[in-house]
């Protein structure tokens, strides 16, 4: 999916449509829905364990968005606000299930100071494909996965990520780097024992 340029409404159009939707215009909301339902679903699909979870969450998020339109600060980008709502919803969903939360809360402030071997890292990256990265992402702890999705799918800035994850802005880089480390580890394990991990890809 190309994210750089919007295919639907442009910035001014989007702002006008959002304004109309906020004043209760059904058609305007319909246009927003048409444009954003699919990206929101893909966001949820990247963050949540199953397709069904993502479908439910996307539906609920779209309803929430409609309900919260009045709270949207139009001086900020709409997509950033939208993903913020989506991230909060997904994070709440994951937290309710208490999936390995205890393990994830540790070491946020511990800064990894290594200087990894660039050659090794380069070689590892060049061997990967999108599919393998997605499969490895599914095996990451929830917070690590969410951090990577917020940054590299939703294009959120560090302030927004800090806000969504509930960490200080100064630690966002650390969280992202630790998530990358976890991903590298998952990718390395995956390429070492593809048979052993093949079955574990979907289940977290």
């Amino acid at each position, binding site marked *: *999916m190309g994210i750089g340029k919007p295919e639907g409404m442009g910035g001014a159009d989007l702002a006008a449509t959002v304004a109309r939707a906020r004043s209760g215009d*059904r058609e305007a909301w319909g246009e927003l829905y048409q444009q954003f339902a699919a990206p929101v679903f893909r966001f949820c699909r990247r963050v949540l364990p199953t397709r069904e979870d993502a479908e439910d969450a996307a539906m609920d998020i779209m309803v929430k968005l409609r309900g919260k339109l009045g709270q949207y600060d139009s001086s900020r980008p709409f997509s950033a606000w939208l993903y913020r709502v989506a991230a909060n919803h997904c994070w709440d969903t994951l937290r309710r299930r208490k999936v390995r939360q205890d393990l994830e809360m540790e070491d946020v402030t511990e*800064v990894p100071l290594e200087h990894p071997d660039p050659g090794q890292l380069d070689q590892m*990256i*060049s061997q990967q494909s999108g599919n393998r990265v997605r499969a490895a*992402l599914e095996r990451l702890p929830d917070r690590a996965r969410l951090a*990577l999705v917020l940054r590299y799918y939703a294009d959120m*800035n560090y302030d927004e990520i800090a806000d969504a994850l509930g960490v200080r802005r100064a630690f966002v880089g*650390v969280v992202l780097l630790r998530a990358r480390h976890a991903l590298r580890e998952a990718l390395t394990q995956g390429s070492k024992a593809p048979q052993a991990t093949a079955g574990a890809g979907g289940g977290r």
Partner: protein
Amino acid sequence: MNPDSPANGKSHLDEVTGLLYIEGQLEKDDAQGVVAHLGQCSSCRRLLDALKRESLLLQQALREDDEPVPASLLAPRASEGLSWWWLSAWSLAAAGLYTLWSSYLEPWLANFQQSGFDGQFFFTWLLLNGASWKGWDDMLQLLILVSLGVLAFALLFLFRRNLRRISSFSIFLAALLLLMLALPPAAQAVELVKKTGNYEVPEGQTVHSDLFVMATSVRVVGTVDGDLFCFCNSVTIEGHVTGDVFAFAGEVRVSGKVDGSLRTFTGHELIEGEIGRNLTSFVGNLQTSQRSRVGGSATLYVGALQLDGSLGRDLTAYLGEATLNAPIGGDVLLRQSLTTHREGWETTGRGPVQVASHADIKGSFRVRGPLQPEVSHEAHLASAPKFELVEEIPPYRNPRAYWLNAMIWGSAFLVGLVLISLAPGFMQQATRQVSRIGAPLGFGLAMFVLMPVAAGLACFTVVGLGLGVPLLFAWLFMIFFGQVFAAVWVGEAILGAGVGAWSMTGRLALGLFLIRLGALIPVLGVWVRFLACLLGLGALALIVWRRFQPPAPPAPAAALPAAPAA
């Protein structure tokens, strides 16, 4: 920033600094230090390149369209071609409606009309909403139905993830089926008979178990040592049944002995033998002969009643016309149909309720309805007959109709509230479907006609009662609560689309109020209710249909405006 970082002129860049640098998160001075270091350190340049490539890999992997978006989420535009489906749904509905009318409704209706009920009664009964005859019992049943419905919805919501997968759904259905089958006492053996011809328990033979029979006709000359359940055209009991008899049949005749109760849903019923306990019948014509005897009480919804045999206890009946000509051990309470044969009475001089010379009523005798009962001088009554005149009045002049509509409003609002708070997405989806009008009406009509037919077929096929009865209940439930979705749509049409749960609740309240108000209009009211039910039923059907649709092909880069670079 790390004090040992090369920005301060020492060793290599650490990875965090490298990441913050490529993501543009370093302060200006620190960034300049990194630039200076990169000019002299090839290893750090390579590290930063690798990190950039890793970022790119992540972006590509995360933004790639590797699976389609569910069709249920991509709300198609109203103009998108569903016309084939509309056409199919309408044709199917029309065909089903014709079949239902010609095979079931018309003969039944003729039967009912002959027996003192008119068409309006039948339809109001069918729609479960006939305000003119509903009493407290019906209210209670309604409340029970509401509670069960809310419970069912809550359960469906809780297990919706599991239900969505077909395999789990099958397991759920199978478990439900097993549960239904396990409900009769497990210790008691059951004999199941299913055949197209006639089934007979011959003289001298004893069936030592409960007996379920689905056949063209059933005749018991011997003995059934247990309960007897029949689904057939005609049931004849000349022998002995030691338990209860449940009969869904065109015709029932009992000349033998039933130790338990007789419960029937039938067109014609003739009792010449002995019923040990109670008689409960929903029947067109019921006749008991002089030598017959019912030990307990009789509760009847009956078109025409001729009671010549003795009744041990109370007689409670909602009826078209009746002749009581037998000893009755308890109280008699009769409610006449409000549309009973006034013209017939005026021309023939014969009232709808006759108490004839052999009648001997030990308890009280009360009649409610439009016409006085006629009591023979030779009849014995323990107390003077009490007659309460109840005339047919249009629903808008009937306080009970208002009360009933308020009750229905309340129960539907309750269900709507539960749905809004538990499954707002589902509610919104359903309202969106209702707003398309044509499709939900077509699908609603198809469901309205086909679901009971399917339930009936299920009862007579391999699947059996386990599926048929729940399906029938689901149908009734959906008919009643379909109006919730229609109500939100009506509310939104008037107030405009709102945002959030509270505004949806307000629109639900207003929409329901208007629908119930519409229901009080004479003649038109029935159609208001019917259309609201159809719209809701159709919306539910469309949602289910979309769930099982194959997903849409991947959308061509449904792009999202990016947030400004950090």
